[in-house]
């Protein structure tokens, strides 16, 4: 490539990167310096570091409570997704009557977004007396069709002969899944863990409907409640945002390759 073109490409991508990063920079800067939000003109560069707003968050809201709730729900969701989807996918690799119909049903159900089923989901959760509980929060997210197909694709790639050998050696079906299939599908496992974690961690509409008291709120819900009684001119709100965003960003930076692959394969493998 000619140098002049490389410079143009860098300039364009650099400008886009700035647009993508400015919101983060702005929030991070304000939350770390504890400066007055009403100050005009606002300081573009940070002057003094001060954890003032973070201390505020600590005293204003039950942050630990929110984190614990979010973590409990995410753990239930991730574990349930691994178990349910791996089992369902293994069943789909076997031959049985009506398999085509089941696959067709699953594929057509993928078109129905969760948001279109919130009313029946709410009524069912209510009948089960699971409103306002961790299990109720986790239940609708416990199996996702996309992940079933991610697992199925991976299981289909395992050589038949290997499975037959395991069967001849007298392995029970569940041990075939555990000791043959899953160790050979680490990337499907990673995809499922990443997708289900992100979905449950960020989930907002469902907790908004199901949760009634502050004790049970998860992080996104706590964030929106905080917004509703503090309004958006409180620095602590942004410190709270940063604290909520950190786990996601950290995970992304650590496992970038897997993360991008996982999130996009969740969309493409369907």
């Amino acid at each position: 490539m000619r140098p002049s073109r490389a410079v143009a490409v860098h300039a364009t991508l650099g400008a886009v990167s700035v647009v993508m990063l400015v919101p983060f920079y702005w929030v991070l800067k304000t939350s770390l310096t504890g400066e007055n939000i009403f100050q005009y003109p606002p300081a573009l560069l940070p002057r003094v570091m001060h954890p003032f707003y973070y201390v505020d968050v600590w005293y204003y809201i039950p942050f630990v409570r929110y984190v614990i709730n979010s973590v409990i729900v995410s753990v239930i969701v991730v574990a349930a997704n691994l178990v349910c989807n791996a089992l369902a996918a293994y069943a789909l690799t076997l031959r049985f009557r009506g398999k085509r119909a089941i696959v067709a049903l699953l594929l057509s159900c993928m078109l129905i977004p969760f948001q279109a089923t919130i009313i029946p989901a709410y009524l069912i959760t209510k009948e089960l007396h699971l409103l306002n509980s961790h299990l109720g929060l986790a239940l609708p997210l416990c199996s996702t069709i996309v992940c079933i197909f991610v697992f199925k694709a991976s299981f289909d790639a395992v050589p038949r002969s290997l499975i037959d050998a395991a069967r001849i050696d007298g392995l029970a079906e569940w041990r075939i899944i555990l000791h043959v299939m899953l160790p050979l599908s680490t990337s499907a496992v990673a995809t499922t863990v990443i997708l289900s974690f992100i979905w449950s961690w960020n989930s907002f509409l469902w907790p908004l409907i199901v949760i009634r008291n502050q004790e049970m709120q998860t992080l996104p819900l706590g964030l929106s409640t905080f917004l509703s009684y503090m309004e958006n001119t409180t620095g602590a709100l942004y410190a709270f945002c940063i604290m909520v965003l950190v786990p996601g960003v950290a995970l992304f930076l650590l496992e970038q390759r897997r993360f991008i692959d996982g999130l996009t394969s969740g969309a493409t493998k369907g």
Partner: protein
Amino acid sequence: MQSWSPFKPSTFAGLTHYQELFFYDEVFWKSLWNTVVFMSSSPIAIGLALALALLVDTRIRGRGVYRAIIFISYPLMTVAVGIIWRWLYDEKVGLINYVLLSLHLTQRRIAFLDSYEWAMPSVVVAAVWQIVGFFMVILLAGLQNIPPNLEEAAALDGASAGQRFRHITLPLLRPAIFLCLMIGVINSFTSFDLIYVMTGGGPNYATEVLITYIYRVAFVLSKFDYAAALTIVLFVFLLIVTAVANRLTGGEAGAVDAAE
């Protein structure tokens, strides 16, 4: 179709809810229209993402870093993203107003999210900002699947860069573009978090979309029966849009190797 709420015995309501919806409910029509407007943000995002994907696909240093930076907004919690944008758009303390004033692009401060005209475009910008990196990664994967010798052959035959893009890259990229379009459509029907946090559907229903309206009818006004009718309309509308999109793009991308 039943008349039902937690406090009433259920009776069969026939089509009265649909009658009310289509003939008397102005907010319904407003929210349907807003959903369509909001949906139009996905072609914009896909166009931008395509340009970015082409740029990132060139052999330049640091393209991995660019890709990561552009992608990072996608997996983040939408509620937090909405709160951050709300602040950037703020009339008095927002960064965007400050920048516009400093550059003399505007004489007066604009109350983006509180004005009837600006609220929807503002929300659309935030939505595009969040999803553009995701589209870019999908399109990038599509670009990298195109065998390079095709382009080389065309270049040898004397095709210009524009011709190569139009006659080789674009047709081969069609499945990836279709996929983005599908995701964009479903996303615009379901993006509740961003709108709820940024505007709550206001001002004066300027940003009320079907999903925020359904939430309000069901869980604020406790009219489950009416909300269920709305949900049916949402779903049918989604099916129609999907079918049309499938038609327009030739339908080959929606094909998934189903059974075996």
